[in-house]
């Protein structure tokens, strides 16, 4: 551990996940002497490239990076720091029980053509639906760019925000504007049913609305979740599918390189155990080693519950806020399975070898066969059980980046949706973990017969593993459930949506803050604007 720097730090970022790195980079770029502290030996957090037992490289929690806010990539010069993105022509491929598939392409016209094999009406509806989603998502993106208004004593800044949002709202067509408030609280099941008649098409679109949540296709507010996923990126109705060359870790590396280039210092293996305070003001952080590092600004990339309950002295937080923070909902329902494969698995629904290689480059949706199939998989998880018909989002990143499997073969990354953090029976011990792995492989076998025989290495991360590995309380990848009650001015808590935590100088920069989770860098980018505004005000 290095000794105290010649000049004291002006900002400390807790957590070197992708939002922590974005915050560190922007703070350093603004001229602050910035220190990023990461508990793990590597930066990136959930956005990492891991190594399987067979040497192949696989994603950490997230496997696509297409939601990264373009302004973050541009302003931090990530391309110059080695970030190379690959966007295949296919977005999603959803094999169906009858051997056919719903494939969503980057090109809406191509998607429409393909959907006509399911329903002529659905094919015709696609272009309009895509346009509708893009328009509404564009407005959500404007909301996402803004710091939520103060819930009491609105100031000039809020007036400006209101004006900008008003302008964004006016950009919506009359119909879209009328639709916006109607659709946000809608269940995605109803929203897709308004445009499409065939169940596989509905399910292939709807699945993205429930990924990483503890919500079902019939849960209200899932339309808002779909629009949030499409906001600020080129996803549209099909959703983004963008890979980082070298795996998601390459994005983390580029962010770290950018932060360092602006002068930020990054320390790994440095666990923060508490935020030091004096009379309601942040004075620095205390490390597990016992060292205290002083800084007037502390930006936490940890989830809000961990930040408030875990790092702040009880008297600084106060009992009422402690109670409220304790009620932040973090119902983790996602598990991860990474597979090393001796060769490309065969998906009969993907067609012949060449055709298959094209269709399998995107997100492979297993279980997106009908709205109620999604709901039933969700139902089991509500009661701590795992459905036999789990929902899976799989990718084969080695198809677009062969360097991940240098000695040939492939890797498959699987996000298993609706795996409960808390099991009704038993606990997440080694046997349960392996049983989950078996269950996921068996589920894959239904669409890719023979895949089990190609597995050379397997890694299973249960929701509990995600919590211990990445510090996600409750195992929730979004730090807080992306439901409407925890959205915009209500995220993470009413009265604390403006990135400022109850202790002066403490900020939340992770996805527990607006605009929420996913690989966007957005909460951190927004938060740093507020941090710098406060700093100017104090001067």
């Amino acid at each position: 551990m290095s000794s105290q720097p010649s000049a004291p730090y002006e900002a400390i970022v807790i957590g070197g996940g992708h939002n922590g790195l974005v915050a560190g980079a922007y703070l350093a770029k603004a001229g602050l002497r910035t220190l990023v502290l990461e508990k793990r030996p590597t930066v990136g957090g959930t956005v990492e490239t891991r190594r399987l037992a067979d040497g192949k490289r696989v994603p950490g929690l997230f496997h696509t990076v297409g939601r990264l806010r373009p302004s973050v990539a541009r302003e931090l010069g990530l391309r110059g720091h080695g970030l190379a993105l690959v966007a295949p022509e296919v977005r999603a491929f959803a094999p169906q029980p009858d051997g056919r598939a719903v494939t969503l392409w980057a090109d809406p016209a191509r998607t429409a053509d393909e959907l006509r094999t399911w329903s002529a009406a659905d094919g015709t509806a696609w272009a309009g639906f895509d346009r509708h989603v893009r328009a509404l998502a564009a407005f959500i993106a404007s909301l996402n760019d803004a710091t939520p208004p103060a819930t009491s004593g609105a100031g000039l800044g809020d007036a400006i925000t209101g004006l900008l949002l008003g302008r964004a709202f006016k950009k919506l067509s009359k119909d879209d504007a009328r639709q916006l408030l109607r659709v946000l609280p809608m269940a995605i099941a109803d929203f897709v049913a308004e445009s499409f008649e065939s169940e596989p098409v509905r399910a292939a679109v709807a699945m993205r609305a429930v990924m990483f949540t503890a919500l079902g296709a019939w849960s209200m507010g899932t339309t808002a979740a779909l629009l949030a996923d499409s906001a600020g990126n080129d996803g549209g109705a099909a959703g983004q599918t963008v890979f980082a060359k070298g795996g998601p870790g390459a994005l983390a590396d580029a962010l770290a390189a950018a932060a360092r280039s602006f002068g930020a210092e990054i320390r790994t293996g440095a666990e923060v155990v508490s935020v030091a305070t004096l009379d309601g003001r942040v004075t620095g952080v205390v490390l597990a080693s016992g060292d205290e590092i002083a800084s007037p600004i502390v930006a936490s990339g940890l989830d809000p519950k961990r930040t408030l309950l875990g790092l702040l002295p009880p008297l600084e937080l106060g009992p009422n806020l402690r109670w409220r923070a304790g009620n932040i909902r973090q119902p983790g329902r996602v598990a991860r399975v990474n597979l090393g494969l001796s060769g490309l698995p065969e998906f009969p629904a993907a067609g012949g070898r060449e055709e298959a290689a094209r269709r399998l480059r995107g997100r492979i949706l297993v279980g997106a066969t009908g709205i109620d199939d999604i709901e039933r998989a969700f139902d089991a998880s509500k009661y701590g059980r795992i459905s036999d018909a789990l929902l899976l989002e799989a990718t084969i990143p080695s198809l677009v980046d062969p360097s991940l499997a240098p000695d040939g073969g492939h890797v498959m990354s699987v996000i298993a949706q609706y795996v409960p953090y808390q099991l009704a029976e038993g606990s997440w011990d080694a046997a349960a973990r392996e049983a989950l792995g078996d269950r996921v492989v068996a589920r894959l076998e239904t669409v890719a017969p023979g895949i089990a025989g190609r597995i050379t290495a397997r890694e299973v991360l249960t929701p509990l593993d995600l919590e211990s590995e990445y510090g996600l309380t409750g195992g929730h990848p979004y730090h807080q459930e992306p439901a409407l009650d925890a959205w915009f001015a209500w995220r993470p808590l009413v009265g604390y949506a403006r990135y400022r935590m109850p202790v002066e100088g403490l900020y939340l920069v992770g996805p527990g803050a607006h605009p929420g989770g996913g690989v966007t860098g957005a909460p951190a980018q927004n938060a740093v604007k507020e941090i710098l505004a406060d700093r100017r005000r104090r001067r």
Partner: protein
Amino acid sequence: MTVGTAFHPRTAPLNAHLQWREWSGFFAASAYHASHVIEYNAIREAAALIDVSPLFKYELRGPDAVRLVDRLIVRDAAKLSPGRVFYTPWCDEHGKVLDDGTIHRLDDEDGAQVVRWTAADPQIRWLRMNAHDLDVEVRDVSESVAAVALQGPLSRDVLEAATGTSFVDLRFFRRRRATLAGIPIDVSRTGYTGDLGYELWIPADRAVDAWDALVAAGEPYRIRPAGMLALDVVRLEAGLILIEADYTSAVHSHIPSQNYSPYELGLGRLVDLDAGDFIGRRALVAEMAAGGPPRRLVGIDIDWPEIEALYAAQGLAPYAPPTVSRAPVPVFAAGRQVGRVTSTGWSPLLKKMLGLASVGLAHAQTGTRLAMEWTVEARRGTVAATVVELPFFDPPRKRA
């Protein structure tokens, strides 16, 4: 449903006129006798037994019991050594008073600290919410511990006769264990009367036996049971505030002006801002840094001849209500309202009409002349009221 306290089998037959009121879900006697004045006299001249069992009582037990106390109260709990009792308010995060009561440090047991916490309002949730990361168990013992106040100039004689031990050495705001008729009890040198007195903390299942022993021992000293009406008069004389009369708990306030900081309730002397953090400290530091709160609790001496004059103006003989009024009444300076009187009552001993008032800082100096609204036959008038030092009545025997 209102229920009797552990003393009810004895107090019920004594309540000749069935003058009950409800106190935290229990029947509490307003007065046992036709007039409460004889009970008042017992408190001030002899000895009285006041059933205070309806108080909320909590037991904090564990290595961190005192740390929990320290986290909550405005005083320095480090000084709360075994055998000591603190009177203190406690605040919310905004430095506004939630409640006030006495906190008793019992004797350590098996290496664990034990604290008895008394309160006017329920506190279990607050205590437990704040016990986060502390090794302390908080139990509600309101129903398992009966409490009786033995108050009055002869109370020590009664207590010594009843227990057969001397209590000369038990100083003001100290406590110790004792045995009464073979019953293990806890005795604190505390009370709500401003007189010499004790409070006895008794296992509820032995409450009746304890009562009988005290009455038997007190017979030669003319001991009497006393009810809430008499207690209200003596607490006013003693300048002791009453929740829901002289202030509103921050839990129940609806508007900012219903919140009170300790400095607004005459409890500033108890607040120790330098002895570590407690809930509300930051707000109180800020409040004092800004010059302190703009209103203060004062005692007022209300001009009796002017009251007489208001009655005379309507052809009536003057009347001094024998009970304390808890109706808030406006108080004026130079024709403008500057506060309100929250408790008003006649002191038989001092022969004065007294009040506790919350007034603007500029009018809180001793000697300030104010005017108070006084209504006779539904006709409003004003009478002079002078700010005086609290307490109104402070006999040396209180601390003796």
